[in-house]
């Protein structure tokens, strides 16, 4: 690959980047020690939720190029699955994690299995339908508590430690975001990741190169589902109560917007995007009705004028410089040693 040699960074650059990332994590981890406003902690915790969701959705949209418009449904599968097992069947919350992962995989296979064989726009509309089905179901079943949802979700306990404070969940979610970032970063540089990017850039060419495109698309879709479901589990524990309104179409749209603003395929971009979709509406609280309007305008403008997002994946940045092309998919699949993407 031509791009690889040009884009490879020197060892010094790489060491500095690592130092920077570690420093940033330590700084964020130290924030609660300065006794900030509890409001700040709760906003930050929700920002981590969106960052985690964005990192998961990035695999689907950013890497494999599949549009998932019902991503919040998997978030709901995790939150409801764990909450029902923990409240109705009295499982310890942590023990529900394997069950939740299994549910997410099954749901992902049911939706993705048939749809991913078709043109990618069918996935968008089917996932949209799936998101609706999930919310309607949660709203109408007895076991999900109907419109009021589920209360008194027990706290997570790790090795005998009960996580009761909001700050505890700040740390748990921060840890998950870091873990998700590392996993997706490693995945991106693996055989699977290369296959995803090949599919995103040109599915027919990928198929001609012997990549089983359907299988890799299912990996991306199911992987994203598992990521979202685990975030959902922790979200339920952090909030202690869940209701269907937290898992609707607007939430799925927010996840897409986070991926889009950040820059499809870029890991630091997901952190920026996840932060923005939580922080901007908080800042504009008295303009709540304008929130989705604003995001709609942003989506159209980003796609027309800056499809690579605010913090582009480096493969795109380098490739853009090489070819002068403006759009990610117009450029040849030049994949650099992109530490940050």
């Amino acid at each position, binding site marked *: 690959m031509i791009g690889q040699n040009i884009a490879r960074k020197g060892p010094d650059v790489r060491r500095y980047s690592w130092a920077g990332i570690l420093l940033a994590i330590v700084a964020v981890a130290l924030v609660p020690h300065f006794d900030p406003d509890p409001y700040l902690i709760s906003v930050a915790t929700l920002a981590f939720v969106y960052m985690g969701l964005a990192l998961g959705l990035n695999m689907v*949209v950013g890497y494999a*190029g599949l*549009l998932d*418009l019902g991503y919040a449904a998997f978030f709901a599968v995790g939150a409801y699955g764990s909450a029902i097992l923990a409240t109705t069947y009295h499982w310890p919350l942590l023990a529900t994690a394997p069950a939740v992962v299994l549910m997410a995989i099954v749901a992902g296979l*049911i*939706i993705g299995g*048939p*749809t991913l*064989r*078709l*043109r*990618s*726009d*069918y996935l*968008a*509309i*089917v996932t*949209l*339908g*799936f998101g*609706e*089905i999930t919310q*309607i*179901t949660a*709203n*109408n079943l007895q076991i999900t508590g109907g419109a009021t949802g589920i209360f008194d979700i027990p706290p997570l306990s790790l090795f005998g430690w009960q996580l009761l404070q909001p700050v505890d969940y700040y740390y748990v979610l921060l840890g998950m975001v870091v873990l998700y970032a590392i996993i997706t970063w490693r995945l991106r540089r693996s055989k699977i990741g290369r296959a995803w990017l090949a599919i995103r850039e040109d*599915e*027919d060419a990928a198929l001609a190169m012997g990549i089983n495109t359907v299988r890799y698309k299912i990996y991306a879709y199911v992987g994203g589902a598992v990521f979202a479901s685990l975030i959902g589990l922790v979200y339920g524990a952090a909030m202690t109560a869940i209701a269907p309104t937290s898992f609707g*179409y607007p939430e799925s*749209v927010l996840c*897409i917007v986070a991926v*889009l603003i950040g820059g499809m395929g870029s890991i630091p971009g997901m952190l920026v995007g996840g932060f923005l979709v939580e922080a901007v509406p908080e800042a504009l609280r008295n303009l709540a*009705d*304008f*929130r*989705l*309007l604003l*995001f*709609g*305008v*942003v*989506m*159209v403008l980003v*796609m*027309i004028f800056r*499809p690579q997002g605010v913090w582009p994946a480096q493969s795109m940045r380098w490739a853009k410089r090489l070819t002068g092309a403006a*759009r*990610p*998919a*117009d450029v040849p699949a030049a994949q650099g040693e992109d530490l940050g993407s």
Partner: protein
Amino acid sequence: MTFLTGQIIAGLLVGAFYAMIALGYSMVYGIIRLINFAHGDLYMVGAFVGFSLFGVAGAVSRNGMLVAAGIVVLVMCLVGILGVAIERVAYRPLRRAPLLSVMITALGMSLILENGVLVTPGWGSLYLVYPVGLSSQGLTILGYQLTLGQLELAIIAIVLMAALYLFVQLTMTGKAMRAIAIDKDASALMGINVDIVIAITFFMGAALAGIAGVMGGMYYGQINYLMGFDLGLKAFTAAVLGGIGNIPGAVLGGFLLGVLESIGGGYLGSEWASVFSFSILILLLVVRPTGILGEKLGARM
């Protein structure tokens, strides 16, 4: 048995709306291979524009049918122009861009329409009672109580859809649309002005959605800024059911989905009707993704 007949007739009425919206999806998809997510919201915008115009004109019973017809035509033109504007601003710059970018733009347009209506003074988020209702004079078909107004709506829908079909089959512009659907570049080489024909397609689809919106407002009696979302999704299902890109298919799919949903909802409870429709969509994509009348279409493009 009467229950079943009743559900089928109710389903056919709702199916007429599905069919009208499905036509717009299908035409746009046929010509530029785009699922226009904003299309369902054009139906909603049509309902709201009609709401305001009827409000300005006052009660129609005093002004007569002519005013009502004038308002409906005006709504069709306004929503049609809106559809063309959306195509011009949001889709045309991305015509050569990857599918993902265009779909995201379409999604953004849908959000802009929904939330634009939400923040417009006088419209807002509450359910609004539609100023015009339907003639409530009753008549009985196969033992099912039906109002004259409902029957009128169904007839208007069928006439419009037939007119559209004839337009696409018989006129020069219709022929150009069909040519572009087959090969856009070759059509341009044959001297067809592709941009204008695409704009006309958007105008016709949007105008049809607009009048469907007014009819939907009359039929349901109330409107809301999110009414287009669910309906758009179902209309898309209808379009796929009949075979997307195919005009008679969209109509057939609309009526069929309306009936299936009505029967399914009748037995499972109406809150499950939507779940039933979406399950049909997912099942259909497994069994026969080309739909009932769909031609063999490439799995991917």
